[in-house]
């Protein structure tokens, strides 16, 4: 037991930069970009899903179902090999993998938005339209503000999920926290100790994040 702790201290004193700066940094960067871009694209997918133009609905449904029905790791592989082929210039691996992560997240976010919008009572739309608001004014001023409040917990969960799922990107050695583990384990042969360090770091990241989201939600509730 004592030996473990001694090893962990030794590893951290030598490789702290690899774990705390490179690993945590890339994990946070990749997650933030995925959530931000995924949310924006997700809103568009959601609007496409709910548009009056039926073929657009079908296209979005097809994309969402395929993404939800295939493993994340497979999607990352496809992104890793496909994105460089589609682009005329070369991109770092993290971008290819990131594109796959963003598309995956966008699909889940679009479903979250859709459920949030549909949970707003139809009467709200009718009341707004009866006052003379147009369809888009009703969406922007009446439906979306209520929908966003409804879906914040689910969006927060999606953020936490993404942080954990970026670990799959280590398959392609893109530098995030799980890649740090692979590197340090390869140098030290201390598997358990490295796993423990990475596990604690993931947990702290997600625990702090979900507490922050909780504070944010309570603030929104009191403004009700």
């Amino acid at each position, binding site marked *: 037991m004592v030996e473990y702790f001694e090893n962990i201290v030794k590893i951290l004193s030598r490789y702290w930069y690899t774990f705390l700066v490179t690993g945590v940094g890339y994990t946070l960067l990749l997650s933030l970009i995925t959530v931000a871009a995924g949310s924006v694209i997700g809103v568009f997918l959601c609007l496409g899903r709910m548009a009056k133009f039926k073929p657009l609905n079908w296209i979005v449904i097809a994309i969402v179902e395929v993404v939800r029905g295939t493993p994340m790791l497979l999607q990352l592989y496809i992104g890793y090999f496909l994105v460089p082929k589609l682009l005329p210039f070369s991109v770092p691996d993290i971008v290819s993998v990131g594109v796959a992560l963003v598309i995956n997240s966008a699909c889940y976010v679009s479903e979250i938005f859709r459920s949030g919008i549909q949970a707003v009572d139809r009467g709200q739309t009718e009341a707004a*339209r*009866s*006052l003379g608001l147009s369809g888009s004014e009703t969406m922007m001023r009446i439906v979306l503000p209520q929908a966003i409040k409804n879906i914040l917990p689910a969006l927060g969960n999606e953020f936490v999920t993404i942080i954990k799922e970026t670990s799959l990107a280590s398959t392609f050695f893109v530098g995030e926290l799980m890649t740090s583990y692979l590197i340090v384990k390869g140098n030290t042969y201390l598997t358990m100790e490295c796993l423990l360090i990475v596990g604690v770091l993931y947990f702290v990241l997600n625990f702090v994040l979900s507490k922050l989201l909780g504070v944010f939600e309570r603030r929104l509730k009191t403004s009700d």
Partner: protein
Amino acid sequence: MIKTENLHKSFHLEGKKEPLHVLRGVSEHVAKGEVVSIIGPSGGGKSTFLRCLNMLEIPEEGKIFFEGVEITNAKVDINLHRQKMGMVFQHFNVFPHLSVKGNITLAPVLLKKKTQQEADDMAMDLLSRVGLADKANEHPSRLSGGQKQRLAIVRALAMEPDVMLFDEPTSALDPEMVGEVLDVIKGLVKTGMTSVIVTHEMGFAREVSDRVLFMDDGIIAESGKPEDLFQHPQNARTKEFLSKVLY
């Protein structure tokens, strides 16, 4: 002011092959300043007819004219005409994310009928008329059902409509709150506001209406002055309905 010609509307229910034919040719004319109540059994088409008047339901057949304009024409900008038709719903439908005052001022300001300052002043004036001035900055979740419905009424009035449509305004209220809402509507009707009221409150319909329509099975089965229709109904179905609800 509002004229309908031969309105037809059916709903396609999930799991049922036959569509439900709710309106089967409704032709009616509501004159300026007239107060018309619509009574009749549930499922008779009262609410659907009312909701067609501002095109919340789009009739499959027939025409609706509002102030001389055919609003069933797809080329007409229905949003402009809806601004002149206030509507009050059974379930209030106040906006929970806005303050009481915000509920009232949103539409007039957004649709550029008033500046924020003018709208605020008018909102306070309207709220004091219905006894809610002290709630102006509260959120609707703090209001009782009766207060919500009074708010919904002044929200519609803030657009300075030419006609008010009431869709069972007291059906979702606790019994002790029905009176306060009916009083507001009575006060409004006295000012000469053209109104169409779908209601189950027979005493109220009799008191405020210039004319009462009895709707059953998708048509207006009988129409007349309240004293005639309530005391000397001609139609067999009107008689049967009234014998069940008046005792």
